[in-house]
């Protein structure tokens, strides 16, 4: 207890003694994490929206012959059991015809006199989220084609290919930019904290000389780093909130051509907590690195 109080006292005192350096550390964390959260926010929203589009990804099996009800039921059951499948919907010839008529709108008189039998019946298979990729669709098609009656498949091959490439690029950029930012921050923080430590190296030496364990010497610095990192993260989240409300919400909505801005959302709570944790970790690691050099004895 005495020690905990001592550490807290030391931490606060030291931050008051070197306000410029503390400010620099907090500022660095804040700016870096703000960039990072801002970018994450964009990626997050784009991903959310594209996920909505991806609901349309489905595999359609056109049926040459109309199966009997019992066969149809058996197929549906079998297909539903496949891990990649979310739902199976049977579209009868009549339903397909009706849909087509609706799509034609005013021109539906074109269909007058035609029988519904001109359109094939089909099975519309919706995929689970994790299978909504080109590979997922292809694998499902391969599974389905084991049943020799299924031969005619449609699953928007080209569209899927582009969608996959887009998501891959988005994730890659996000990971690279994020990783780079984190390393840059770590570098800057550890250098700033090195200055703090350098300014107090006599104290470190003397503490060590009078029998302070390495942990006892390091703890206040680590606490200081973690604390500053956490404050920086809070500032970053606050700044991100401000940017989000004033600029991003409308900008993103316009960019992604979504009608409603309510589809755009701020980072979910767990991500905000993660940003806070990241700030804390950055501060901690940033002070741990230079301390290793100074506190050897």
């Amino acid at each position, binding site marked *: 207890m*005495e*020690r905990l109080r*001592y550490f807290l006292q030391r931490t606060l005192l030291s931050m008051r*003694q070197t306000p410029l350096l503390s400010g620099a550390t907090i500022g660095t964390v804040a700016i870096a994490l703000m960039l990072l959260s801002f970018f994450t926010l964009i990626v997050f929203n784009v991903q959310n929206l594209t996920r909505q589009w991806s609901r349309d990804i489905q595999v359609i099996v056109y049926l040459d012959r109309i199966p009997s009800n019992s066969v149809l039921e058996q197929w549906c059951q079998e297909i539903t059991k496949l891990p990649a499948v979310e739902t199976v919907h049977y579209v009868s010839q009549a339903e397909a015809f009706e849909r087509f008529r609706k799509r034609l709108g005013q021109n539906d008189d074109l269909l007058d006199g035609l029988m519904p039998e001109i359109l094939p019946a089909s099975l519309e298979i919706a995929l689970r989220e994790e299978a909504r990729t080109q590979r997922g669709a292809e694998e499902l098609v391969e599974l389905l084609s084991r049943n020799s009656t299924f031969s005619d498949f449609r699953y928007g091959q080209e569209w899927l290919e582009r969608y996959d490439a887009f998501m891959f690029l988005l994730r890659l950029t996000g990971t690279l930019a994020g990783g780079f930012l984190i390393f840059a921050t770590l570098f800057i923080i550890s250098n700033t904290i090195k200055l703090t430590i350098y300014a107090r190296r*006599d*104290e470190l*030496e*003397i*503490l*060590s*000389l*009078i*029998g*302070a*364990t*390495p*942990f*006892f010497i390091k703890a206040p610095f680590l606490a200081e780093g973690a604390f500053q990192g956490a404050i920086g993260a809070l500032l970053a989240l606050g700044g991100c909130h401000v940017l989000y409300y004033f600029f991003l919400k409308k900008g993103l909505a316009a960019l992604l051509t979504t009608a409603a801005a309510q589809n755009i959302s701020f980072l979910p709570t767990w991500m905000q907590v993660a940003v806070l944790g990241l700030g804390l970790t950055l501060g901690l690691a940033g002070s741990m690195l230079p301390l290793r050099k100074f*506190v*050897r*004895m």
Partner: protein
Amino acid sequence: MIQLCNIGKVYDNGAPALHDINLKIPSGDFVYITGSSGAGKSTLLRLLYCADRPSRGQILMGERNITRLRPRSVALLRREIGFVFQDFKLLNKRTVFENVALPLQVQGLAKQEIQSRVYQLLQYVGLEYKLQRKPLELSGGEQQRVAIARAMIVRPRVLLADEPTGNLDSDLAIEIMEMFTRINHEGTTVLLATHDRELLDRFPRRTIVLKGGHIVSDTLPQTAEETPSKEEAI
């Protein structure tokens, strides 16, 4: 019992400081280490405090070999040893009180105990009216007494003092020597590095003379038992 076997020390820059030192210091002894400037007195004390590592040889303190200790063990060892540094090594941003209290704080003692012990000791070295001063607001002699108080606050088993009377006038030096004598009588082993001849003559003790990093003599005083300080102490 402190024992040094074949100790050699060469500093990183290549400067040799100690050669083949063999030494036995029984517990409870009071020993001077003397010799001209640069002879290696400070180096010898620093090795005992693990502030530096010997380049060769072994140092035993009690049952323990302290030549290659891990950082945590070094810290624990230092809690049993008091060290008065030649350059004091006080924290100039903290008060006299805080400086003296530091070794106890490091050990996690309760606040009240720290306060009473520090106050008592500061009274003992005559600085109780200056506890809230910072070291740089004190005279050299006063700073030295703060350094001595900080070394004694842990009630060490071994006290290593590097020129502890260097900045004191002879009256104060005598007072400090009496203090050392007193804690020596309480069982603490004292090693004192000094080149103050007057002190050596006035308080004769076992004296080890270093020269160029070698031990050139190791003598006991002629009047082994009778030391003038004894009556004055207590």
